[in-house]
């Protein structure tokens, strides 16, 4: 009695997946090529629905862009040529991975600059505290004697 219900639930569960798969079918000779296609379309941004890549987007323009990527791949174009052709039409905007050039260098260099700055601050603090440690100790001589006695395991000083 539960079987049809189960089957129906299962169908419902897999239906969205198959819909997405059937969206458009591109044939590839090798797995590597298919992988390359998937990587390319996941790194290209849809100009219409701006927070999606063209792999995820259902917009007609994304379909056109996927078709163009596929067509150029089939013609033997390199990844740079394919991305370049789309950038020429839609602008730098479609790259999820911007190229390193004079306009984007700050974008790429910011993490390094921040890490470097952080290291310098840490180094500064360490050096300063070391220097301070050499000159003056927060402990008086008496305290120092007590401390070393404690560390040596001599309990007499505790009384």
């Amino acid at each position: 009695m539960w079987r049809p219900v189960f089957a129906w639930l299962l169908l419902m569960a897999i239906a969205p997946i198959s819909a997405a798969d059937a969206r458009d079918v591109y044939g590839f000779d090798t797995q590597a090529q298919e992988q390359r296609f998937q990587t390319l379309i996941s790194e290209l941004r849809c100009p219409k629905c701006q927070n999606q890549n063209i792999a995820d987007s259902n917009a007609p323009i994304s379909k056109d862009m996927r078709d163009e990527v596929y067509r150029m791949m089939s013609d033997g174009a390199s990844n740079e040529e394919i991305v370049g052709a789309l950038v020429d039409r839609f602008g730098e905007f479609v790259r999820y991975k911007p190229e390193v050039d004079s306009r984007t260098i700050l974008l790429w260099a910011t993490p390094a600059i921040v890490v470097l700055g952080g290291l310098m601050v840490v180094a500064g603090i360490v050096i300063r505290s070391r220097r301070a440690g050499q000159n003056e100790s927060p402990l008086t001589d008496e305290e120092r004697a007590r401390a070393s006695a404690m560390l040596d395991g001599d309990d007499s000083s505790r009384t």
Partner: protein
Amino acid sequence: MKRLLLFTPLILAVVLGVVLFAGIGKDPNKLESALIGKPVPEFLLTDLHNESRELSSEVFEGQVSLLNVWGTWCPACRDEHGDLVWLAEEKGVRIVGLNYKDNRDDALVWLDRLGDPYQVSIYDPRGSLGFDLGVYGAPETYVIDADGIVRYRHVGVVNEKVWEQDIKPIVDRFREKI
């Protein structure tokens, strides 16, 4: 010196605030065309009104034109159509229409019913010229100068305000150069 250092966080916050504030109010959906300063891509498409007449980028030569991308499937195109007719008839603007991913019969009925503001109508049923132009959402309107160079792109509806503020100054500038 030490004292000044204490102000670093404040300065950083102000700079960041200014940078972020500059971005407020910008519509992220309006992208500048990648073709600004470049010629209209080569194409060979038929005339919407005449299947056997082929059009190429020569249609832009000699005059400053607007290139309006539209389709009968596009509600916003219906919205701006009256303004395009007004521009063509009252302001004498030369508008080239690019009928994008549409059906010839539907398009002709539309122009018949609503008026035809286009001096030339290019029929692009597969969207090939649209794709080369980087059209990502109709309606889009381009300013093309007399040498066929793309000078400006407006994404979205053209109305009197957009014409006066954004498009007219550019059209006027390139008209003077002829």
